[in-house]
């Protein structure tokens, strides 16, 4: 799922922190990328919203980890995501590494913003 290159004008650019490291033997591979995103206020990460997120994550080129409530989840695992117990309005931190990590976390953030 491609991320849009232009975020809507009325939304602040999500804070994307990038830790670029030179991986031995892997020229130019990026290090871990993290992105904070907030769940819509009316959407808790249970049942259908969680499944929608997991399906979207399964189409991304790299695995994405979601951190919330002091727990971490593989975004491709429904049981992991459900165990986060993330309520509406809570902050999720997405992280990924490798080629395509930037696009992956941005794409997933977009999906999360549209859940409901």
């Amino acid at each position, binding site marked *: 799922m491609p991320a849009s290159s232009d975020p809507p004008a009325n939304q602040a650019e999500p804070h994307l922190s990038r830790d670029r490291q030179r991986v031995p033997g892997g020229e130019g591979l990026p290090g871990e990328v993290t992105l904070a995103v907030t769940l819509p206020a009316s959407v808790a990460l249970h049942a*259908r919203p*969680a*499944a929608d997120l997991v399906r979207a994550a*399964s189409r991304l080129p790299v695995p994405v980890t979601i951190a919330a409530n002091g727990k971490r989840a593989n975004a491709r*695992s*429904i*049981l992991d995501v*459900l*165990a986060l117990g993330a309520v509406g309005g809570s902050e999720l931190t997405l992280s990924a590494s490798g080629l395509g990590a930037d696009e992956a976390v941005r794409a997933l953030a977009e999906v999360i913003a549209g859940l409901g």
Partner: protein
Amino acid sequence: MNQPADLAYVGLVLVSHSRRLVEGLAELVGQVAGPDVTIQAIGGAADGSLGTDPDRVLEALQAAAHEPGAIVLMDLGSSVLAVSAALESLSDEQRARLTVADAPLVEGAVAAGVLASTGADLGEVAQAAEEARDARKL
């Protein structure tokens, strides 16, 4: 290419000693897996009491034993006998389309259902069901 939905998505066969339990589970899994994943819920003895109904188990397995295959999940080890007996009545080709997952019924079905809804193949869905054995919820 237009395909009927059940040719593209791995299905689920849920087997329990309780009809109410398994029908409730099918409803829950249906909500997370969406309409493309065929779920058969088999529970209770023929007279409606707790137990297993071999005829209905066999019917369900026969109905599910086509491409791209189906995962069979059970509530307790005592359901294994009913499922094994039914499997013996199937052809080799039918048996090859079914994988019995050694997994907790609820968590395995949810994990399998969601993965099946992504179009994953039989092996991948079976693996997701079995990974549910180690999943923590707290």
